[in-house]
């Protein structure tokens, strides 16, 4: 327990500089890109020079670079991100709308990745080199090689267009939930995007778990367990799989960030209004405040997810959290 507390404290302390660096990076990236929020807007609607000047003044883009940076940092310090230039709405409102969709999709994808990945990994790693292992390993490799936009479209064509089991996109049935209620409706909308986003990670987890188990089979303690006459099933679980799960959890923690970012494509194909698509809109709209808000939010999600992973690791392997700090 003391170890867990130490992990929490350490993570929180390191979050502040991380967040500052991320915010500055967001500002610098958009400054480095040619064109500003007004250029992005005028590309859609046109307008004369006076119109552009008025809009720049209104959006606070008419100031010098130091002036804009100061205003940006001031907003961050006061924890008020103000108005999004691209969407003409408060940044906080926009993020509050989108974050739950992304968290749901991430949870769904992580569920698919962990569930399917561990299942495949266990079945392969239980008897490495067997026929079942060969089949599953090949399958996992194929899954890993599939680009997720392609998988997303194939899933839509088969399960939404041909079979009609799931909707083609969106996050709810528009015009009121069908029989079964809103929760079931949301779940039906979540299935295909979660698989599309999670399948590649499932394959990665399966391969990592299998590799760990293959290594464990030749370890002394496993051979000792054999010698003691323990049943194979018990050996697989207690001696082989459990230590092999540690790198899988570490991998999960490492990939939470890519789950947030990698969802752009899947969110686009499935028309899920989430943070990935929003980040894309913020960049194309040269919207520094919105992008900073998204990155801050994503940073917090990653930090929390890593914290949870560390806590889980501490349970799996009590040595973690004791030694360092």
């Amino acid at each position: 327990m003391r170890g867990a507390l130490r992990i929490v404290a350490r993570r929180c302390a390191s979050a502040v500089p991380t967040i500052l660096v991320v915010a500055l990076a967001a500002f610098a990236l958009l400054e480095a890109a040619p064109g500003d929020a007004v250029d992005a807007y005028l590309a859609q609607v046109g307008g004369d020079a006076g119109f552009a000047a008025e809009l720049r003044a209104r959006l606070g883009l008419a100031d010098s670079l130091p002036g804009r940076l100061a205003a940006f940092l001031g907003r961050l310090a006061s924890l008020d991100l103000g108005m999004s230039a691209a969407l003409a709405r408060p940044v906080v409102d926009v993020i509050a709308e989108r974050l739950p969709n992304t968290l749901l999709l991430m949870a769904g994808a992580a569920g698919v990745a962990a569930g399917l990945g561990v299942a495949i990994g266990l079945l392969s790693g239980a008897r490495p080199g067997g026929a079942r292992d060969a089949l599953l390993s090949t399958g996992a490799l194929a899954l890993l090689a599939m680009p997720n936009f392609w998988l997303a479209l194939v899933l839509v064509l088969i399960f939404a267009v041909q079979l009609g089991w799931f909707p083609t996109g969106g996050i709810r049935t528009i015009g009121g939930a069908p029989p079964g209620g809103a929760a079931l409706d949301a779940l039906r909308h979540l299935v295909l995007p979660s698989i599309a986003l999670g399948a590649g990670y499932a394959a990665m987890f399966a391969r990592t778990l299998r590799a760990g188990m293959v290594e464990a089979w030749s370890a002394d303690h496993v051979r000792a367990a054999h010698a003691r006459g323990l049943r194979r099933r018990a050996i697989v679980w207690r001696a082989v799989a459990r230590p092999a799960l540690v790198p899988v959890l570490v991998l999960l923690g490492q990939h939470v960030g890519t789950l947030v970012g990698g969802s752009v494509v899947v969110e686009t194909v499935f028309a899920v209004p989430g943070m990935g698509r929003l980040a894309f809109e913020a960049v194309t709209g040269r919207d520094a405040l919105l992008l900073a808000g998204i990155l801050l939010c994503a940073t917090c999600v990653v930090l929390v997810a890593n914290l949870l992973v560390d806590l889980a690791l501490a349970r799996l392997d009590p040595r973690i959290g004791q030694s360092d700090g």
Partner: protein
Amino acid sequence: MLAAAGARGQAPRRGGTLFVAADGEPRNLNPALVASNGVFFVASKVIEPLAEMSRDGDGLSPRLATSWSGAADGRSATFRLREGVSWHDGRPFGSGDVAFSALEVWRKLQNLGRAVFRDLEAVETPDPATAIFRFSAPTPFQLLRNALPALTSVLPRHLYEGTDIVANPANRTLVGTGPFRFAEHRPGEYYRLERNPAYREAGRPYLDSIVYRVLPDRAAVAAALEANQVQLSAFSAVPLADLARIAAVPGIVVIPQGYEGITYQLVVEVNHRRRELADSRVRRAIAHAIDPRFVVDAIFLGHARASNGPVPRWDAQFHAADVATPGFDPARANALLDEAGLPRGAGGMRLRLRILPAPWFEQTRQMGDYLRQALRAVGIDAQVVANDSAAHTRAVYTTHDFDLAIGSPVYRNDPGISTAILYESGLPAGVPFSNQYGYASAEMDALLGRAARSIDAAERSALYRDFQRLAARDLPIIHVAEFSFLTVARDSLRNVAGNPRWATSHWDDAWLAG
């Protein structure tokens, strides 16, 4: 399986929700502030203009105005307005709304109206059904007439007067007089419009509601149509390359009509600040290097026409049919480049150019790739520079950091609205979709000036025909093709494409068969 538009001899059915694919959400949904097709696609069902384009009669059909006339001196225009119309909040519509919209919104704030209504001085409202526009300088009535469909969306004065119009909450939750009321917007998901029960025409609109689902992925649009989860996609949302497959799906029709009044032009924009490109022989050589038929067949898969200049062929009012296109002639191009003092050097190349294709359409991007190959054949080594919207707008229209650009200007029913500005000189940097090309011709400026002030329709049309001839002679920008769009719909949706700008019009007669 191209289907004709229109009803098929059945009586319209009341009711139902039409699901429409939308590719994005405009930042500002108010069509009186932002006259653009992306805005009209949703907003034109709620907020109405004074008149709509029509295939019959004189090309216009009444909306909020029932008749219109201009004074001979070009100093005034009189509009008779429809009576007994109410706003969606129940307040009566009247000439005060038109006067307020014209003076405070179209003239001062609208992206296109700021030019067309520049000289509007006052709007008199002798009674609630009459609005008389007074101009400080002669303003061609022909121009006003042609501007009615796109530039005259009327806002409710009682919600806007005395407020910051640009930031007014009614720009999100529109209040209009049209057949549908604005019901709901869930950002990132959908807009929902519902039937206006107080609409002036009995029994209409037929649909109970229209839902625009935001579908940013074009392949997903095709899937949603196939699964009947949307019944309509407009503005070629389904990629041209997918059309043949999707048109073969039973229950789906491809409708090319309904965009005649919304023509885009594929052009090569030329930076005259680059010494070699200031020579009209070099520009002509570039035009000769381009095969418009290849562009139409390979890039647009046949859904476009070769262009002969800045006015599209459908516009009988202004199009100069006698203007010849340069024509695909690489031998002539090579000869012109030799003549211009640009011999082939090492590797057979004469000069290096940067091409910036606008990212708006897949066709503008593809044209960039094609132009690079076409120029290589005549000894011009071109590099394609891919930018996103903001970077492209900045590079071409503000910093002029390009040699050639691929653009797609919209022709808006009159050369005076957004076409002449592509040729006028003396504009400040930073005005998008204008002559930022460094082309400056006293002859062109004088001609455009005369046309802008001409209050006689026949004379004005003749001047704009001269303008096309001069544009063909100088070739400051190179017109390659004119294109519009396709609608892909379920055949249960009826009365599609009933006017030349159908996708951006009212839809009060659209209905869903059971």
